[in-house]
């Protein structure tokens, strides 16, 4: 009978952790991208797009993620849209995440002093350049800490995908647990994998936050301004 150590180091668990990580990273990247689009729309002042954006955020923040997940996996096929379990999970998690990231990014953008935009406008920068080179880099200081929390939350939320049979860490642990009738060792092994991943994310978050602290950053020597070479429309 295998014990905790065997489970922890088994290929099965490592693969499960890999799928959990892939699910988390994919959903977060798409969620951040979606949230950025929603936040840019919300702060753009384009009237006709406000109501649909609000509706989206209201819908996805107002219903359980588990319901959204099952809806995409089980209800959409009845309407002729079929996705694999993994794809369904990524879609559900990133759609849901977009709604939360939208609010985080919007708050970051709105925290940037209006004078920054005035100064950039007078200098002749285009609106997209102002957003990219002036507003967003400053908004990042407010966006990164809560986004780190979202990453960690997503890592744990991804376990919900086990209900639609995504072969993630939790599902594998449960299957082995019921096969061997050994819930304690299997679930503890899975918990350790989750802890390792969340700890890594926490360190990543801390590193990013420190990197963005201007006063601790290294001086760019001769290459100052090289960052502005792209996007020359």
């Amino acid at each position, binding site marked *: 009978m295998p014990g905790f150590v065997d489970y922890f180091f088994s290929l099965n668990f490592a693969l499960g952790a890999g799928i959990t990580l892939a699910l988390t990273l994919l959903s977060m990247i798409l969620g951040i991208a979606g949230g950025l689009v929603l936040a840019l729309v919300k702060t753009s002042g384009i009237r006709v797009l406000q109501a649909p954006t609000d509706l989206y955020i209201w819908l996805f923040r107002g219903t359980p993620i588990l319901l959204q997940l099952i809806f995409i996996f089980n209800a959409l096929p009845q309407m002729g849209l079929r996705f694999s379990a993994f794809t369904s999970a990524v879609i559900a998690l990133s759609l849901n995440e977009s709604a939360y990231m939208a609010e985080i990014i919007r708050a970051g953008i709105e925290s940037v*002093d209006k*004078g*920054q935009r*005035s*100064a*950039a*406008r*007078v*200098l*002749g*920068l*285009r*609106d997209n*350049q102002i957003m990219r*080179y*002036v507003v967003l*880099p*400053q908004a990042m200081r407010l966006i990164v800490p809560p986004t780190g929390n979202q990453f960690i939350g997503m890592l744990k939320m991804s376990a919900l995908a086990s209900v639609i049979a995504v072969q993630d860490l939790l599902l594998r642990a449960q299957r082995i647990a019921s096969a061997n009738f050994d819930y304690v060792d299997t679930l503890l092994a899975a918990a350790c994998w989750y802890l390792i991943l969340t700890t890594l994310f926490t360190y990543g978050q801390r590193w990013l936050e420190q990197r963005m602290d*201007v*006063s601790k*950053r290294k*001086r*760019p*020597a001769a290459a*100052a*301004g*090289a*960052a*502005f*070479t792209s*996007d*020359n429309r």
Partner: protein
Amino acid sequence: MTAPDNQPILKVSAVEKKYGELTVLRDISFEQFNGEAVVIVGSSGSGKSTLLRCIAGLEDVNSGEIVFCDQKISADKKLRYSIRGQIGMLFQSFNLFPHLTVIENIMLAPRLVRHTPQEEADARASDLLKKVGLVDKTYSYPEELSGGQAQRVAIARALAMDPKLMLFDEPTSALDPELTREVLDVMLGVVEDGMTVTVVTHEMSFARKAADRMVFMEHGKIVEQGATEDLFNNPQNERTRSFLSQIIGD
């Protein structure tokens, strides 16, 4: 203070600006010639800053028009893109970009808006830093600068776009007296180099030294305008007289 050409570079005609029901500018008209320095004075709340923001295209006027080098100014994006930083502006709160070093602040607009090559922009920025006396701050971040240094960097940043007109919106009002002097000195240098400037300030000694003409505003209206010495020595309007005596009196 070069001799003015005969075509005004800036023509403000019968401008009116309202925020909702509140009229902040009414019937503002003045013009400015190339190389001229105009100082706008008046008590706070008289609409001076709003006027500069309208000239810079940061706000729209409700009626009347502002014409700069044959282009009608508005807050429209297209116009801003076509003017491409030909009007520079200094703000009371400096508004340097805090996430960029001093030299990056200066090079950002030339690189993005004018597509100036890297080396050229770099060399120009270094020259400008020399001009405002801050070469040692090239790679500093704005939070490491004093207010006076920050405003001098902001002057260099504006000059980097080679503007035809520079607007100074109370650039020293957030500064201590000793820091005010270093900024005023740099501003005087800019005026002496022949830049056309429109300055809102309470610094009367600067006005007296630098301004060719002065505009006195109150309650959103121009009460009096004229050559600097005339306005100081022989103000025609009662309001101008009492304002000047208040400011210079002590």
